[in-house]
């Protein structure tokens, strides 16, 4: 008996985070009017399907001293990308690692990886590790540092269905 709660309602209930109480799933289930077991089953299914990546803390990099970050971009041989991409994405200093289309002739890069560190030197050192990892498949690379945040509103669930 799961009640009639949509994934969107579950997402909306958890968007602001999990309640910081000893039994958080019971608290959320209560709020949604469904049994705790039912909510856990749904959350497990959302994890399996990739809607939820994990249930965890998001630290503020800056407050933990990781004040430098660079958007590293790479021109990687297409044939090798599916094999090498996951290796770059698995590095613990890399977030937001994606294959994206090139925009030739302006933009030859097809792999993006945000690299985080406590200083520009550390970011460069980590970037050098990616260079080694990509080896012969690498044809070109660049790094873009952000100089200013022009807008940051975050992503919000809109009212729908």
């Amino acid at each position, binding site marked *: 008996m799961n009640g009639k709660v949509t994934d969107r309602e579950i997402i909306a209930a958890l968007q602001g985070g999990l309640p910081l109480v000893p039994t958080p799933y019971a608290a959320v289930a209560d709020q949604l009017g469904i049994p705790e077991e039912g909510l856990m089953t749904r959350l497990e299914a959302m994890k399996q399907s990739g809607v939820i990546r994990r*249930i965890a803390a998001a630290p503020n990099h800056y407050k933990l001293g990781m004040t430098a970050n660079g958007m590293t971009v790479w021109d990687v041989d297409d044939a090798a990308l599916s094999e090498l991409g996951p290796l770059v994405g698995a590095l613990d200093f890399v*977030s937001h690692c994606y294959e994206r289309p090139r925009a030739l002739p*302006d933009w030859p890069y097809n792999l993006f990886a945000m690299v985080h560190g406590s200083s520009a030197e550390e970011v460069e050192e980590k970037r050098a590790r990616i260079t080694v990892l990509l080896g012969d498949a690498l044809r070109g690379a660049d790094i873009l540092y952000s100089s200013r945040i022009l807008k940051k509103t975050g992503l919000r669930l809109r009212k729908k269905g």
Partner: protein
Amino acid sequence: MSTLDDIDRALINALQDDLPLTHRPFAPLAERLGLTEEALLTRVKALRESGVLTRFGPFFDAAAMGGAFCLCAMAVPAEDFEKVMTQVNAHEEVAHNYERQHRLNMWFVLATETPEGITQTADAIEQETGLIVHRFPKLQEFYIGFRVAA
């Protein structure tokens, strides 16, 4: 950050891993750190309040929130930068926007209800600014390992 003790640091590191789907999901970690659940939660609340943790809860795949997303970039002439920034930011579909040191110097993310919304918004920005909006939608995602060591 000066007020973090060793337990806080261990907590921050451990809480970046997946929390179990159990009735009392914090209990095993509390035991491992030699804390009561209440003491652990008090620390997590303090870390949230001081902003060391920006959030605690499920990480949703952005597409699961409904709608479409696309990273975009423009090469904006320096003398027009502020004007173009204002034009771009005026679109509510622009979720965030960064100035970056490159010929492509303005990078923003569009978030729209539908895939067509990306094209419409990007095209509108091109018309308003007379500049090309390069579109870099994600084709494959490789993001797996990122953790901040406290």
